[in-house]
């Protein structure tokens, strides 16, 4: 089967799986990784794909999925401020159009990340903005290569196709109606599972809840520790908020344990 037709079919197959995957609780990263692995399997040995998601303030990109890009590369570029010299993705988000860097070694777009890319053996990168249904940029999709070069017409069409499918998956994962439905389905299933399960923890909900409350309390302490060690400019308040939420959830769970133990009705 020709590449374009094979890609179209594979992505359509993926589309039919996305809702079920999100409903059963798979993370968006898991879903997007499967999309990208599908693309890479068809794209040959010299295609390393990644999806970066734009922050709500529209200023920074962070990794949404990058199944075969080395962790050391992702760590070193984990939060990219978009701009004209912020690599192909940072520039694509900044300008709102595809940026095809045919030679990373000489392209000014790679000013801030050139050394990192070359150290990892990447020589070209084709990045395209991902847009939601309102046309707003929500991220970028990129293909890195270990060779220099410009995409062909067929490859540009393939990139557009992939970007559209990725946008659909991201929007589906963020759709409030979908999230509410998923929550309701999980809620409807879980109590019935408990009634029939032979698992000791499920047969004693208080044990399971106690274990979760202990984990939450431990996480709160860890989050406070991260906040104390973090650079004050790097959103320390978010870490403090997360620690507070962890404690709040632990307290709510302990209240539920009391309810289960006493057999009182839920308020």
């Amino acid at each position: 089967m020709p590449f374009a037709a094979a890609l179209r079919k594979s992505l359509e197959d993926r589309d039919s799986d996305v809702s079920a995957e999100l409903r059963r609780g798979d993370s968006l990263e898991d879903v997007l990784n499967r999309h990208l692995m599908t693309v890479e399997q068809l794209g040959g040995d010299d295609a390393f794909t990644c999806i970066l998601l734009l922050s709500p303030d529209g200023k920074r990109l962070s990794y949404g999925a990058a199944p075969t890009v080395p962790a050391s590369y992702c760590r070193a570029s984990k939060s990219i401020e978009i701009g004209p010299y912020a690599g192909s993705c940072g520039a694509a988000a900044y300008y709102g159009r595809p940026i095809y860097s045919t030679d990373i070694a000489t392209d000014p777009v790679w000013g801030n990340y050139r050394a990192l890319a070359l150290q990892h053996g990447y020589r070209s990168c084709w990045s395209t903005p991902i847009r939601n249904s309102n046309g707003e940029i929500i991220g970028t999709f990129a293909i890195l290569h270990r060779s220099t070069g410009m995409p062909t017409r067929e490859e540009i069409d393939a990139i557009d196709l992939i970007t559209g499918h990725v946008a659909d998956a991201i929007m589906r994962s963020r759709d409030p109606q979908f999230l509410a439905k998923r929550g309701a389905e999980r809620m409807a299933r879980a109590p019935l599972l408990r009634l029939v399960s032979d698992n000791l923890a499920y047969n004693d909900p208080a044990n399971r809840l106690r274990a979760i409350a202990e984990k939450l309390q431990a996480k709160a302490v860890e989050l406070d520790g991260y906040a104390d060690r973090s650079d004050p400019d790097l959103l320390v308040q978010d870490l403090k908020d997360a620690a507070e939420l962890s404690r709040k959830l632990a307290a709510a769970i302990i209240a539920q344990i009391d309810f289960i133990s006493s057999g009182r009705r839920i308020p």
Partner: protein
Amino acid sequence: MSSASDIRALIRHDARTVEIEMLADDFLAFVDAFEVTLSDGAVPPEFAERLANLHQRADRLI
């Protein structure tokens, strides 16, 4: 042996617990997903976005 009405009552009474437990599971998974980055002393922008969503769910529930 439980009657059908006992089972229905159990399910109904358990609903809020399940919802809180689901939120706690999601919160723990969220912190785990960012653990490596956080331990490096950084907080990525996506952290704030996802934390805000969890806060909203908690505010509705608790």
